[in-house]
């Protein structure tokens, strides 16, 4: 027994000493998921039938798409011809349905499902984050980036070629983008899925509330001065996606169905070609296999079956309850309370604003007049050359990103827009580089003691 006891005691001593000198990210918070499921008023079926809609929407969110919907167990049609994954839940599943990138990347299996003959790009791994790829610039005939010709579009990872249901869309008519060349030429960036919990609350924050907060920060002594991305047409503040370029959950849903799964729909009616095909003759005719839009309003069916998938995906997201934080894990209650106060003191909460209040809701009581603890101002901020991806979306330039809402980050596995790190401390330090609005705040963080930094990390992992 002594032989076992002594080394364990030594190890404990070592850990205590180590902790005293260096703050650490304890990693994703364990225990049951702190997110998932409907808002309480939806669970209470208020108004009547809303729970039926939520449950049906969740089923659709989890369905796997195939090309014609004829493969057993994959009843939804419209997949591809280009796609990144085969269901919504594949990418939005950590720590529960509606979340973000899971521990096992489903894209590895997607690449060859049902006989597909895709090559898995080097940046997609089993234990890595789910990723979509965007090319920074169009390339010339030799594959060299033309830095005066910004691309910015999503280049879907896979094609349906080789699948048992690919019909005439074979490898002889469609191919994957040249990701190896894009990696070699540093011409590709990545985006990981944004978590969807509580997004109905985010959608229902009035523009005037966001603008008033922005004005209140003017003249702050931290060098922070964000702005808003706005929806084309309406000109209202858009707030979804890594650069806040998407104005509503329905637009988010329609875009994702089209871009990530290749399903044309009533918001994005065209079968989506690659950005290069879009500049030439479009998708090969042999790969236009279904009538468009593939997802559409359903007639002659039940009330809950009538809306399109896109409408129901949006409804699912809208009715998801927000993440619930832990008051004790990790590090204990005092550390978390202290960490939250320090997070505000150093200035992090200037952009990662703790709360907003929503406008009255016409949908369900819990969406209206609610306090939203999202930890974001929903503005876009200059984040410096270290995080810049050279992608422009709406008014957001290559270095501007929406303040990522932090709720739920305690159980997230990957951080920053491209999933480059799983470590909270690395994510914090990445906020500082040439041109970043966060430089002064990161200096404030760096002035803290090890214990204080640890408290902030514990607080973040409690969310």
């Amino acid at each position: 027994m002594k032989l076992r006891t002594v080394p364990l005691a030594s190890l404990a001593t070592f850990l205590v000493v180590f902790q005293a000198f260096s703050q650490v990210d304890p990693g994703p918070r364990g225990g049951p998921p702190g997110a998932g499921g409907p808002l309480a008023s939806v669970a209470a079926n208020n108004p009547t039938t809303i729970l039926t809609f939520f449950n049906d929407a969740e089923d659709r969110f989890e369905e796997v798409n195939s090309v014609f919907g004829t493969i057993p167990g994959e009843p939804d049609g419209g997949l591809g011809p280009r796609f990144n994954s085969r269901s919504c839940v594949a990418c939005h599943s950590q720590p529960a349905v509606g979340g973000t990138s899971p521990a096992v990347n489903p894209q590895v299996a997607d690449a060859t499902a049902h006989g597909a003959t895709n090559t898995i790009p080097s940046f997609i791994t089993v234990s890595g984050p789910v990723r979509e790829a965007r090319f920074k610039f169009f390339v010339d005939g030799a594959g060299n980036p033309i830095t005066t010709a910004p691309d910015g579009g999503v280049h879907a990872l896979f094609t349906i070629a080789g699948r048992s249901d690919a019909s005439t869309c074979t490898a002889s008519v469609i191919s994957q983008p040249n990701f190896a060349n894009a990696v070699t030429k540093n011409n590709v960036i990545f985006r990981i899925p944004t978590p969807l919990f509580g997004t109905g609350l985010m959608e229902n924050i009035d523009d005037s509330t966001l603008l008033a907060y922005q004005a209140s920060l003017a003249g702050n002594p931290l060098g922070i001065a964000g702005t808003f991305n706005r929806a084309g047409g309406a000109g209202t503040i858009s707030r979804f996606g890594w650069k806040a370029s998407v104005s509503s959950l329905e637009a988010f849903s329609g875009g994702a169905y089209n871009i990530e799964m290749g399903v044309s729909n009533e918001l994005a009616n065209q079968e989506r070609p690659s950005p290069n095909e879009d500049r030439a003759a479009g998708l090969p005719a042999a790969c236009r296999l279904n009538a468009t839009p593939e997802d559409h309003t359903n007639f002659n069916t039940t009330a809950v079956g009538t809306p399109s998938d896109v409408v129901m995906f949006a409804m699912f997201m809208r009715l998801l309850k927000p993440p619930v934080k832990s008051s004790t894990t990790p590090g204990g209650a005092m550390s978390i309370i202290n960490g939250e106060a320090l997070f505000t003191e150093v200035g992090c909460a200037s952009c990662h604003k703790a709360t907003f209040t929503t406008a009255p809701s016409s949908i369900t009581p819990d969406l209206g007049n609610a306090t939203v603890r999202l930890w974001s101002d929903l503005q876009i901020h200059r984040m410096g050359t270290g995080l810049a991806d050279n992608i422009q979306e709406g008014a957001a330039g290559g270095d501007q990103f929406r303040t990522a809402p932090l709720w739920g980050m305690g159980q997230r596995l990957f951080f920053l827009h491209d999933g480059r790190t799983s470590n909270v401390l690395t994510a914090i330090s990445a906020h500082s580089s040439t041109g970043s609005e966060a430089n002064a705040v990161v200096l404030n963080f760096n002035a803290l003691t090890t214990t204080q930094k640890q408290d902030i990390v514990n607080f973040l992992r409690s969310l």
Partner: protein
Amino acid sequence: MSLLLMLWLSVVPQGELLVKGAMPSASDASTPVPEQGSVAAGRYRNAYFGLTYPIPAGWTEQPAGPPPSDGGAYVLTQFALYGPDRRLRAHVLVTAQDLFFTLLEAADAKELLAAARRGAESQYVIESGPAEVTIAGRRFHRLGYRAPRSGLQWRVLSTDTRCHALTFTFTGTDPALLDAAERGLSAISLADTAPACVNGYALGDNVVERTDPMFATNRYNTIPVRLLVDAKGRVKHIHLLSAFPEQSQAILAALRTWRFKPYRVGGKAVEVETGMLFGNPRPAIH
């Protein structure tokens, strides 16, 4: 790998911002603009403000801040002092807020600091101010506050120049160190003279000839523009704080054709600096 070598190899440079979004630009490269300060020989110099700031001994320049915002906020420079253990001990952030474009209804540095105090009151312990102090023969306003848990302290000193609030923010946990850094401000120099600056001069009857810029697309961004008008009412210099390239071209082309009534002080026509907004009108939220 150097930028030129990477371009030669047709590799997109790492850590270079090439797709910039809305950025500052100007009608010529020789007229100073606020964002063009530089550090040399232990001093930060900014020709627009006529500012020279001797950097405290041992303090090092930090990564540059963001470009000017569409609300007229500038991060001019930042310096920090590290201890032997590499832990940060203090830093100073030098900023400017163009008072023509601030999102707050603040007419000067004093009102801006008063707003900063109101913003700080719920989270910090206010130690003093804003109170008027004289530094290097110039009127500043000073706000001091500290954070109760972290021990961080802020000393914010702001002065009015060219319709900007020019602000030095010292932050750290060691009061003696901050005191010394604050005393170092007495060695700064700032221009005594500058063009008259008048808010709203490019409105109404002051504009004799105007052609409005045409934008091919509406990007819904706010475009703040500073104009320098000479004593004969001609546009001498145009500075766009934040605009997309095609917006800059349209605005520059239009504003070059504008003519103003000469601005007069004591009956004498003089240069005048003013500001105007293009693009998405900012909602009134004051």
